[in-house]
């Protein structure tokens, strides 16, 4: 049969980045930022994220917190993303990046307040411009694109320094139109946007292999014309390097990019889920051997700047901070009922005053 001749118009490839393998051995020379102090700080923040998540799950089990999405096993992604951002950049989060929230200065009490059913948790004391946690999947990526537009606009039209928007989402989010529409616009308008995909292998019960025919999620960015790569999402150095590079590219006006960080959800989707219904035991066991904290600790120990005493001291300090936060969370009085109207509009329209007064028990 005759085969028509065709010209090759474009071809693409997807690179993968790793510095620390699962045993904590370096696979190549580390980037300059990876000094002992920095790595200890990363390790500490990952350990804190794990403690915060662990306590949240325990509090949910004992009726002290609502449904909670743990990031167990994915701490390197959150911490790597947060560490790659400048303070004045804007984070546009999904709901499963405890490490990134802590890096951004969101407090443990605020995280617990949110999942304890109190909107005041979203009124971040420190990360004032960061977007609130977004529960609907991938919607935050479009908000991130809008933030990135505004940052670029304020830089170009109003002379402000260039800042960058960073947004995160799970592997499941890359099946949504919002994801495609966000990266397409970001490419089209060359927005200072960095999209980080936490590929934890599960969209609740649907495994990564059944979500798409794509070999990598990173390659989805090719369709939007924006650079992307895959990193070992359990290697905090790789995440920090890749996201940092993407952030700096965006900051110098070279446009958006995407990072797929490959990890594994070592926990249930949320406390309302039971992953044993669908997650193969063997896969979970294997994933534990690749988890992010142990490999970094191995590296730090092998290079002589970490040992059992430091570990014990750190755990004691982190637990102290955690207990203090838990206590503050528990001691926070419930918000006034009228708060549900107080922030609905800047000024409550007269048409709703009757309901407001009813809520206050005035009529």
């Amino acid at each position, binding site marked *: 049969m005759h085969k028509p001749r065709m010209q090759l118009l474009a071809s693409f490839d997807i690179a993968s980045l790793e510095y620390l393998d699962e045993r904590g051995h370096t696979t190549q020379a580390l980037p300059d930022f990876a000094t002992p102090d920095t790595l200890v700080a990363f390790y500490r923040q990952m350990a804190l994220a794990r403690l915060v998540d662990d306590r949240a799950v325990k509090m949910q089990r004992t009726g002290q917190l609502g449904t909670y999405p743990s990031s167990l096993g994915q701490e390197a992604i959150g911490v790597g993303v947060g560490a790659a951002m400048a303070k004045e950049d*804007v984070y*546009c989060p999904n709901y499963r990046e405890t490490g990134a929230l802590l890096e951004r200065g969101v407090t443990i009490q605020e995280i617990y307040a949110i999942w304890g059913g109190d*909107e*005041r948790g*979203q*009124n*971040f004391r420190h990360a*004032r*411009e960061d*977007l*609130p946690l*977004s529960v*609907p999947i991938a*919607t935050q*990526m*479009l*908000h*991130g*694109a*809008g*933030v*990135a*537009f*505004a*940052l670029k*606009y*304020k830089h*170009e*039209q*109003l002379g402000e320094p260039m800042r960058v*928007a960073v947004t995160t989402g799970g592997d499941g989010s890359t099946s949504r*139109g*919002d994801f495609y*529409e*966000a990266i*397409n*616009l970001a490419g*089209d*308008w060359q927005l200072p946007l960095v999209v980080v995909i936490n590929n934890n292998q599960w969209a609740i019960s649907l495994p990564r292999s059944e979500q798409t025919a794509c070999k990598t999620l990173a390659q989805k960015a090719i369709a939007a014309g924006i650079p992307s790569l895959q990193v070992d999402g359990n290697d905090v150095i790789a995440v920090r390097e890749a996201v940092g590079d993407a952030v700096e590219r965006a900051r110098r006006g070279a446009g958006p990019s995407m990072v797929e960080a490959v990890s594994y959800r070592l926990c249930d989707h949320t406390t309302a889920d039971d992953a044993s219904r669908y997650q193969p035991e063997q896969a979970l066991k294997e994933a534990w051997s690749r988890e992010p904290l142990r490999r970094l600790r191995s590296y730090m120990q092998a290079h002589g700047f970490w040992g059992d005493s430091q570990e014990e001291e750190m755990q004691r300090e982190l637990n102290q901070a955690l207990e203090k936060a838990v206590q503050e969370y528990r001691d926070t009085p419930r918000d006034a009922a009228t*708060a*549900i109207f*107080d*922030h*609905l*509009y*800047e000024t409550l*329209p*007269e*048409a*709703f005053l009757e309901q407001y007064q009813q809520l206050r028990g005035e009529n």
Partner: protein
Amino acid sequence: MGEITLVEAITQALAFELQADQRVVVFGEDVGVNGGVFRATEGLQDRFGSARVLDTPLAETMIAGIAIGMAAQGLRPVAEFQFMGFIYPALDHILSHAGRYRNRTRGRLSCPIVYRAPYGGGIHAPEHHSESTEALFAHIPGLRLVVPSSPARAYGLLLAAIRNPDPVVFLEPKRIYRAARQEVPDSGDALPLDRAFVLREGTDVTLISWGASLKETLQAAEQLAEEGIEAEVIDPATLKPLDIHTVIDSLEKTHRCVVIHEAARFCGLGAEVVAQINEYAFDLLHAPVQRVTGYDTVMPYFQLEDEYLPGAPRILAAVRKALDYANGGAV
């Protein structure tokens, strides 16, 4: 400046606010070079540049979503949806985020956005181009919903919407985009977003309508006047929050009321008007409030759209029913 149409008043308001406020950006499908399919943004890109008047890729969810991020950063985005029939992919962002951002963050971030869309039937357009589903938006907490019905009100209400610190869905009745001309001084004066407008004073019956249906409503009122029946015509203009006081004041005089809208009847905004009249003005009524609406069917292709839309004969029939009830009724 001479008399201008409703759509030209939209352009004039956009231009005024683009000039006055550097934070305002206007975007949507074909709004830039092409000036919008209805020419509502005609000339704006030439005047204010492509950094502030932007053509977007074709994706309504995206248009709604990016407005939220822009607004959270302090810009004043004015987003155009080409037709209301294509706004539904945007509902997720408008409902799940724009209307909730201020509340969710306890006032830390807000969404001063205007979502504009041409709406309503009567221009013989293809399917999905004649929708009037304003009730969907009226039901969403945290939003304002505005429908202008004259060039002057379009100008003043759009300025108010852009300056409003919260999200506004601004539906433009495209059937009357060019139906009438009016002198609209480019004063920059906004109109209130919580006040109904009395378009015609009368003592016998209150007719409430908005958008393009006001054309037939006012026609019906003229016809009634020839018979010696004086109808008061009210345009709420801001459908949420609804100014029920102006309606009640009118019922003090007329005691009878007909609500007219293009949208389907079931759970249409007429139902809300009737419910509020029941709650606040039941004793004033001399007859049940009548509704003249689109039928509870799918909006038909255009050959039958005139049968669907409430015309003057249906309005007159409802008015007579309201008046006859009093004549033979218990009052």
